[in-house]
């Protein structure tokens, strides 16, 4: 009965609610008063460059780092007083793997499951299921140490599911993986979302956020710079198309002459000019008309990368 009540409450309340949340490390203010609400069943993203405060936020939500200020409830409870009860219902994929590399793949799942008070019999079945999910069944009884980075990451994600969490925290789940491994992980995360798990994901990858997140916030220097669905953010902060012009090193012209009506906005990156415009081909023609001779040109749809560039004035992937 009690459990049912708790679930009912979290059905209507947000799973995570932060207001004016602050994290300080001595003089460093890593998170500077953010407001966030994550609803049941959604995939929520924190997007931002290195040092934006994504991991600091995730660790506060994961109840392993006490907040320095503001309000925070997770699953309707206060991390300061109910940390253990909250953590019992969380799955956590940390930025850095912390598998026991001297145990086997299967042992990692089973030992971890025990910390959640689960029975050995239950965990035997659960481990088999998760091994299948992570496509590690044929490596089940191998030691973790020699596994590839992608396999370890998959195992870490599988391990985070051992307690059938209500809320899954993924801190850069696919950083350092090759494209194939990333797509496999995206597929797995998508399936989890379909099965009703609430996901919170941090990432540097725009395509990842666009693929996985229903809603996201862009974080920069500890603050939230924008919030919305990927499509909303793109329409609010960018244009339909982007024209990219690349020039040989040292020959990139200054942007000022092109500010006038050729495009809504022009950004200069170290190696190219970006023209934000509704019609990329028309802008390209205009650029040729103005005598620009780039070595290569590209007309593409605008992405979150462009949103980010607009919001923070710098490129994410340097």
């Amino acid at each position, binding site marked *: 009965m009690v459990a049912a009540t708790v679930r009912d409450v979290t059905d209507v309340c947000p799973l995570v609610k932060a207001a004016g949340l602050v994290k300080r490390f001595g003089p460093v203010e890593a998170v500077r008063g953010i407001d966030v609400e994550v609803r049941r069943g959604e995939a929520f993203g924190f997007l931002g460059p290195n040092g934006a405060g994504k991991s600091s936020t995730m660790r506060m939500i994961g109840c*392993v*780092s006490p907040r320095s200020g503001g309000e925070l409830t997770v699953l309707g409870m206060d991390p300061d007083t109910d940390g253990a009860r909250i953590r019992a219902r969380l799955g956590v994929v940390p930025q850095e793997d912390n*598998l026991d590399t001297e145990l086997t793949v299967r042992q990692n799942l*089973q*030992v971890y499951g025990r*910390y959640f*008070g*689960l029975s050995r019999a239950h965990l035997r079945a659960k481990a088999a299921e998760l091994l299948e999910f992570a496509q590690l069944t044929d490596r089940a009884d191998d030691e973790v140490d020699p596994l590839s980075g992608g396999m370890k990451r998959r195992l870490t994600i599988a391990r985070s599911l051992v307690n059938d969490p209500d809320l899954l925290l993924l801190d850069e789940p696919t950083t350092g993986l090759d494209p194939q491994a990333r797509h496999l992980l995206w597929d797995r995360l998508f399936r989890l979302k379909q099965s009703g798990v609430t996901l919170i994901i941090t990432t540097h990858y725009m395509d990842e956020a666009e693929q996985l997140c229903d809603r996201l916030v862009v974080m920069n220097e500890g603050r939230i710079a924008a919030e919305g669905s990927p499509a909303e953010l793109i329409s609010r902060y960018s244009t339909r198309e982007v024209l990219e012009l690349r020039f040989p090193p040292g020959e990139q012209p200054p942007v000022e002459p092109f500010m006038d009506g050729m495009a809504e906005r022009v950004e200069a990156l170290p190696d190219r000019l970006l023209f934000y415009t509704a019609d990329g081909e028309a802008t390209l023609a205009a650029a040729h008309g103005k005598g620009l001779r780039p070595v290569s040109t590209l007309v593409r749809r605008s992405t979150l990368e462009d949103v980010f560039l607009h919001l923070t004035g710098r490129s994410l992937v340097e």
Partner: protein
Amino acid sequence: MVVELAPAGRAPSGSRAALLVVEGLWTWYRRNWRATVVSSVLQPVLYLLAMGLGFGSQVPPSEATGGQPYLVYLAPGLLVAAAVQNAAFESTYPVLSSFKWQKTYWGIIATPIGTGELVSGQLLWIAVRLAVSGAVYLAVAAVFGALTGPGVLLSLLFAVLTGMAFSAPIVAYSASVNDEGDSFSTLFRFVLLPMWLLGGTFFPISQLPAWLRPVAWLTPIWHGTELARGAAFGTWLPLPSLGHVAYLAVLVTTGVLLARWRFRRRLTR
């Protein structure tokens, strides 16, 4: 129809949580114990044979050995010294590694297990390791006729207490180390080794120059050795023994509190 809910995770109670940490460490040990046998059991046995049988053959029973043959005199002392040495190993590199290299502690505290329970579990595991290694050592010592009677079982208890009096503060120290383990070599060289040599394991500290004796009084080994010999030979006096136990208990308690503080500081910043 009864709908069966998948058993979601729960937060285990404090003592259960500590035991689950022990279980995790045991799972590791079951795979990797071979590497630890040499230092934890073989080494003290070799000392007992070389010093007790070999060197001891040159030492006639005297007042200094409580009238016992040297082998018999040495056995309970080595039991304690070995426990302290094992405690030193188990409380340093494995702890640092769990923070720094394997980072397994970070994984554990993301579960319902808290830092206090993690510390309890880690220390409990070390105590179990000390007890088991000590028991194996005693079995070998018995074969060589180095034991006098069932009193050594009590000596084993005191050896574990002594080991933990060293272990708990060292675990706290290891939780504060962030180098590649170089500070441990310093610890072994300048704390452990002098303790081994001067703590009354091989000869009574009354044989030390008077100015060195207060150093021996500070070492847990000396207090533990007094207790272990007293229990083995039935020669202990109530008041001094209480004092030794109290000193060791204070070290354990202080160490546990320090370790809890250092773990919390490092893991939940």
